[in-house]
């Protein structure tokens, strides 16, 4: 008996080829998008905006433009940082450096537009918001002028001093992320705002030290004192656990004093849990760059939990 032709026809040679090429094209597009998002630091801008949104929800501030402003400023600052440190980054992040080098002009113009728009929007938030936004621009110009190199041995030394370097970065971002939405809404400084500042300061400090682990050799060669350089990777892990414990204590204190509602505390704890997981893999995983990114993204789940809990409630 002759067999009936199957109704489920297999793809012909040309259809299979077409499917394969479509898939590979889609994969290329996705890969490019991922690279653009990662290497241009757009994801950091989104993270910063998410952190501002978290602050706004926790402090019950009215909707305003501050997440957008902080996101744009973050993008501009990081793009400028990537462009300024092209030579230094060559050895530690070759793929990112290649991307930035290739798109130098576009990135600079995009950074300038982001910053210009951020400053203009910040004006609508009042003088304090404007001042907060202006600060990175002043650093931008000074950096380009190489004033840091000229004045600079003191500032350079500051950047090379153990803990201080990470603390300065953490301080700058915490002030901006908590201060910007408050400036936009003329909100008074409250103990809850203080708790959020402390939480973000400690978490950002941990974030900043995590990428130092893969850079331990290059930092040691350059004479930069980071925790992994001075105390080693294992002790660094332990120290960062200590910082997380401190943060945990801060959250517990805030809950006990009624400064944080349970939903907010839960959200902050979720963020902290992500951070702890990342720390646990430090020195134990080969995907060190991914660990750094995961630490930077650790506040996003916090916002997700907060939104879910708030909407659910």
């Amino acid at each position, binding site marked *: 008996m002759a067999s009936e032709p199957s109704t489920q026809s297999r793809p012909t040679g040309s259809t299979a080829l077409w499917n394969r090429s479509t898939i590979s094209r889609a994969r290329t597009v996705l890969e490019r998008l991922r690279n653009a998002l990662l290497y241009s630091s757009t994801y950091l801008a989104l993270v910063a905006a998410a952190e501002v949104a978290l602050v706004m929800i926790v402090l019950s501030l009215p909707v305003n433009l501050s997440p957008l402003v902080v996101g744009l400023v973050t993008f501009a600052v990081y793009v400028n940082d990537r462009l300024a440190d092209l030579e230094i980054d060559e050895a530690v992040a070759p793929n990112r450096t290649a991307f930035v080098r290739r798109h130098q002009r576009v990135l600079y113009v995009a950074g300038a537009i982001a*910053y210009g728009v951020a400053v203009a929007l910040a004006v609508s938030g009042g003088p304090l918001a404007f001042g907060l936004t202006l600060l990175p621009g002043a650093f931008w110009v000074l950096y380009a002028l190489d004033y840091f190199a000229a004045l600079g041995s003191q500032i350079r030394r500051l950047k090379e001093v153990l803990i201080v370097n990470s603390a300065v970065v953490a301080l700058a971002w915490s002030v901006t992320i908590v201060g910007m939405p408050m400036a936009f809404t003329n909100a008074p400084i409250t103990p809850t705002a203080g708790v959020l500042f402390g939480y973000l300061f400690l978490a950002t400090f941990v974030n900043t030290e995590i990428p130092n682990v893969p850079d331990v050799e290059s930092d040691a060669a350059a004479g930069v004192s980071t925790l992994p350089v001075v105390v080693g990777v294992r002790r660094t892990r332990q120290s960062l656990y200590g910082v997380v414990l401190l943060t945990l204590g801060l959250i517990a204190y805030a809950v006990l004093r009624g400064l944080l509602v349970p939903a907010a505390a839960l959200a902050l704890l979720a963020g902290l849990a992500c951070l702890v997981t990342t720390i646990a893999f430090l020195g134990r995983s080969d995907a060190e760059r991914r660990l750094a990114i995961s630490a930077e993204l650790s506040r996003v789940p916090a916002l997700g939990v907060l939104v879910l809990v708030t909407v659910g409630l």
Partner: protein
Amino acid sequence: MIPLTVLKAALICTVAIGMVGGLIAWRERPTPGSVPLAVLLAGQCWWSVTLLFRIDAVGIAAKGFWVDVSWVGIAVIPVAWLFFSLEYSGYHEYVQPRYVAVASIVPLCIAVIGATNTAHELMYVHSTLVEINGATMLDRTPGPWFWIAAGYTYLLGLLGTIPLLELITSDVLAFRAQSLALIVGIVVPWLTNVLYLLGALPTYGVDPTPIGFAVSGVAYLGALTRFRLFGTNPAPIRYARRLAFDRMEEGAIVLDSNGYVVELNDRAATFLRTDPDDILGRAFADALPQVAGIVDCAGPNDRMVLEADDGTRAYDVSACSIVDYTGRTIGRSITLHDVSAHLRRQRRLTVLNRVFRHNVRTTTQLILGCASEIDDDAGRIADRIEGHAMAIEELSEKVRRAIDLFDRDRADRRPLPLDSILCDAIDSARDARPAVSVDYDGVPDDVYVDELLTVVFEDLIENAAEHNTTADPAPRIRIDVRSGEPEVDVVRVVVADNGPGIDDEELAVLEEGAETPLRHGSGIGLSLITWGIDIVGGRIEFADADPTGTIATVEVPIRSRPP
């Protein structure tokens, strides 16, 4: 009155544009004009920001505060404008820290006095709140320093406009869009400010000039980057011109309309062994009497030659009038071209001419005389000596022709009928080689060419005849003339022979135009032909004839018939 929200939106856009433009201009460093432009945009940004804060501020004190501190940005703008204009248009000599410092003294005072107005009220003498279309706005009565600031701003604005206008009206801007960008950049902010001061703008008493400066900044930024894209940033043009003037091979002296020396390049100073500082600003006749004597006394067609006192150097002097765009003579330019080497060569040629014309010819005649007295076996040795002596005589004749040719290169040459030149050359060839038959159909009488071609065609036809010594085929030369080919004012003469042809090596040397010890021609005849044609501005090509021989195609300009 426009809605207040529109005005605020415009100011917010101005801030954004100013910031973006400023940062992009900052990146363009060290492109001329980029830093002052970034400063200008920063100033207008601050001005716009303070205007926004002033609109939103509540109460007379708060509004007054923002007006006062706005002067920090306002004061920066005219200085930045002036130095942008100077730097961009290439006046770098004025863009020096000391000039910037001097130009910034008044703005510094303006900024300090403006920011501390409440203490002395020098900037504003009276402030009050007024309702305009439902919005509470600040109305202030200007004090003396306000008008000083306005006057100084307009002064610097005007000064900065001059080089930009100069740039627009010059021929250095190849693209209309770029000129348009500069015009927009100049007109918009000042027009906005004038209209505001005249009270013609419905802006709630708020000065919208920073919006004008934002437009201006974007226009300039476009000009700055577009010029760079096209590789025609105009800043170096002034320097290039100066450099060309200073470095040119000729000495150059520029006189104004009153005959005073206003410019002198280094080469002229070296030629005349003088110091420019001693010459500049003095009357031409007094400062450089030797040059002035030649220039002022020469007729319109006289050749002016200045010879140094010691006779070692000589200069061709030429003078031309400098006219402005209306055709009015505004000065004269005198150029000195060093012709010392040329004159030296000319003197040497004169000596060589004499040697060949007299000494070689006389010596050859003596040899011929002596040879005729030799009584040898059937006179064979005497014949050989005579033959060689005649060859020397022939060669010296050609060298004399070459020297004549070079002499005629300098002299004014007459036009002669081509037909008579060719007929003379054919007669001369027939006299020398009676066995050669020449076919020539003649040329119309009105075709005139340079008289120098007499030597050329004599040699060309003689050359065709003398190398054709075989009896079979019989030596034959064909001359064809086509007037008006390949162009109307050109005549083509084709001389074809059936001789042995020209050696490839010889042709290669002629085409290259230069000889080396290892690669050279066999004589001077063909060189003489190519040199002559070169001097009259013609061209010659050689080709092989079929089955044997050479076809020489000469194209020379037709000259007008003499009156």
